[in-house]
């Protein structure tokens, strides 16, 4: 399995997860994740080459329904729960012109 997790990796992963961990949090998280990943190495001993991955407990395929017109959620009620809304839409900060 992979090498021990570094603080650099933790910070990279936190960016992927859209979490802005501070240095102290990143340090603590690195130690805790390393401990857990160490424990998780127990499955390295298993021969899994011919094992089919199990993605769902009760396999159902192609779950479809009739396309029936029915009322959906009330727009005002939905937008009323958003942090900010304007003219029937969600309002967000600028999305272009900034580095991602």
């Amino acid at each position: 399995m992979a090498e021990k997790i570094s603080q650099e990796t933790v910070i990279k992963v936190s960016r992927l997860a859209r979490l802005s961990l501070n240095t102290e949090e990143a340090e603590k998280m690195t130690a805790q994740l390393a401990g857990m990943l160490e424990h998780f190495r127990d499955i390295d001993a298993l021969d899994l080459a011919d094992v089919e991955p199990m993605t769902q407990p009760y396999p159902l395929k192609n779950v479809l329904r009739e396309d029936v017109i029915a009322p959906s959620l009330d727009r005002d009620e939905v937008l009323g729960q958003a942090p900010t809304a304007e003219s029937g839409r969600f309002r967000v900060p600028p999305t272009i012109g900034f580095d991602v």
Partner: protein
Amino acid sequence: MEKLVEIASGVSGGTLNASDVVEEYLKRISARESEIHAFNLVTADQARHDAEKIDNDVKAGKKVGALAGVPIALKDNMCTRGVETTCSSKILQGWKPPYDATVVTKLRNAGAVIVGKTNLDEFAMGSSTENSAFGPTRNPHDISRVPGGSSGGSAAAVAAGFAAASLGSDTGGSIRQPAALCGVVGVKPTYGTVSRYGLVAFASSLDQIGPFTSDVRDAATLLETISGHDPMDSTSIPQPALSLVSVLDQGVKGMRIGRVTDLPEGCEPDVLERLEAAFDALRSAGATIVDVKLPSLQYCLTAYYLIAPAEASSNLARYDGVRFGNRVDAADLNSMYAATREAGFGEEVKRRIMLGTYALSAGYFDAYYGKALKVRRLISDDFARAYQSVDTILTPTSPSVAFKFGSKTDNPLAMYLCDVFTIPSNLAGHPAMSVPFGVGVDSMPVGIQVLASTLGEQAMFKVAAELERAS
């Protein structure tokens, strides 16, 4: 604690007043809730209003449902239209869902009176409710101890007599473990038997809703009411509601009960003693105890703590400060996402998002998540082999009785080990339930777990009913 079935038959028969029942429960809540903290919200006015309507219906000779006038508490991760639903997280504090979960609709249609929303570990991630953003729930049997988790509020509400029953959700043991620690019955049904529509998602291939009650008959009655196919949940099994109450008095004569000979280590002696007593009771009632081996069980913790955080990291991406919940303002979109999530999520939720994101990230996917899915298959195969020779399996629910506050908070792995006996059923999608069976150290309740194969609820309830008769 009154029984759910007695309240329902009394109210529908006109010998009990739903309004009197709800007042009695609200009185108990005001007397002891400040000490227990089972609830995030008590919906007293709505409960009084609903109870009055049921009384009027009974007086008018209208037909009322199977749960008429029964006070029920809901874990605060089930959507209630117009009523705050927080998941015990700051990020959702104040959010009022624009729709009801299917279980909420079913409860209302059956005449249940919802008394409040119960506390949980934030987003159902934890085994003690110590991860709630709004403070922990205390165990009604000893307030220096945890009630278990994540559905600790729902378990404590029933144990304290704040509600005749409650609903919880179970991803790795979050119904069964708190049920055991609080001395009540808790059921995780087969994956897909109870609709997840309106249950805030934690790990979608593992989550399942189920009841907490003070006895097995109440659990059977409540589960019959909330189960059944729902077109709003694409993982819902296309079959009618479960039929359970009719089997409760059938006994266990001739049934084969599995004893796991390679049970993971770490279980306290007082709990193992109760397990042996449970086997003795079933043997005396005419069941045969059969040894079974589940060699992959020792890997369940690893599989679960890779799969559940991976699914959670994806599910919790929706908390972005745009469509619902709270936002921390920032100059651009990505900074707003990060500031919102940093301020809104607690430590354990962040830890699981990080673990899951890492396990799914490029370069590590095959080593962690991919392997975990294969181990999940091994565990499922182990069970399939065992169920060729037994009808149900008995294990402890939790390795120990309720522990003291703070005793596991500094060591996430120690907390995760609380789930070692409950996780396998979630990975396999099987039903499992915890039944109170005497006490362990310091007279704290011990729960015995009854496991069965997919849709094996009838066999499971027969055994649970027998254990209850023997306890």
